[in-house]
């Protein structure tokens, strides 16, 4: 059920359907949040931070999803990797109440309320060079088209696309190094 629905949303997203991508990320957020709440019982303040890091990871690594591959194990592997990475960075393996067992599924239960991460993406964004910050600001936050952004910034359209891509990767790096 979940697999088929998310997989078809993901395939539409990869084809460039931004509306499907939004639904996909919204549903993923719900699943991942409840997964992280269960896994990070000892660190409730980390849930939203890691959730946002995970969403950025899914976004920045979405080219590694193979269309013939089941989607839920792909997300599950990213979530486990990021969770282990966080715990290792914290050197706080004691927060794990029990080992990461295979049957603890990302998609098992759901919780639903909006929440905020501790870091400020707007502030992180200001630290990026203009060739990355402006494309993200115009295209991703204000919702302008790539063409309009190119005209406004004097950059070429491909430079705008590259700026968005590299900027989001840089943002993910910065969030990771804060934690």
């Amino acid at each position, binding site marked *: 059920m979940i697999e088929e629905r998310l997989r078809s949303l993901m395939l539409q997203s990869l084809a460039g359907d931004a509306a499907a*991508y939004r639904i996909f990320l919204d549903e993923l957020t719900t699943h991942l949040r409840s997964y992280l709440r269960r896994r990070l019982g000892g660190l409730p303040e980390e849930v939203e931070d890691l959730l946002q890091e995970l969403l950025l*990871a899914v976004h920045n*690594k979405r080219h590694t999803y193979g269309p013939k591959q089941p989607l839920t194990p792909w997300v599950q592997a990213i979530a486990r990797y990021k969770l282990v990475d966080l715990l290792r960075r914290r050197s706080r393996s004691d927060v794990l109440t029990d080992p990461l067992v295979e049957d603890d599924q990302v998609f098992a239960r759901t919780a639903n309320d909006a929440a905020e991460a501790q870091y400020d*993406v707007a502030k992180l964004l200001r630290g990026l060079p203009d060739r990355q910050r402006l494309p993200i600001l115009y295209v991703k936050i204000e919702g302008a088209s790539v063409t309009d952004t190119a005209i406004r910034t004097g950059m070429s359209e491909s430079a705008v696309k590259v700026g968005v891509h590299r900027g989001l990767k840089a943002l993910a790096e910065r969030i990771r190094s804060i934690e």
Partner: protein
Amino acid sequence: MKTEDLVSLLSTGAEPVDLRLPSRRWLLALAGGALIAFLLTAGLLKLNPALWHATSQPMFWVRESYCMVLGVLGFIAVVRLARPGLRLGLAPVGIAVAVIAMWVLALMTLAAASPQDRAALILGHTAGACPFLIALLAAPLLAALLAVMRSLAPTRLRWAGAASGFAAGSVGALVYTLHCPELAPAFIGTWYLFGMLIPTAIGAWLGPRLLRW
């Protein structure tokens, strides 16, 4: 920042994604790494002058197939380890089968040889240099494979590094056969394998250091 705002940021203006990008990068790395290994072999080591003559011996083709099979299986493992959520499948088993098959062949030739010839079958004339030259030829490809791996999403970093090293080592060994005059199975099963394991160990060491994301 609110998570819903991040979702909106990520989805707004989302562009189509080229899913063939990883395969293109892998092929480019493989072609580039193999080409550099070939240039190093032809320029630095010189091609084996008896190469054409050696092609008439069955053992020449056994040696080529051995390196080729290990390279293909190593490369399959590399590609799978770069995508989250994929199992390794039978590639490691295939590698073990190929290695053991060469050892069985080596034991058969050693058993058939007279005792005073056995050391020569194992050591050949170039045992001291062979593993290190294979590792040298593998180095550029290992670097290229790790660079591509970094742009993808490995979740088992040590394995991803080790597999990159093994694939690079096998391709390095395959190119090295153009220089190397040794054909004894005991030599191939020992020193070629050792040569492939050097980049494998380096890759396993580098993986957790270079591939984190």
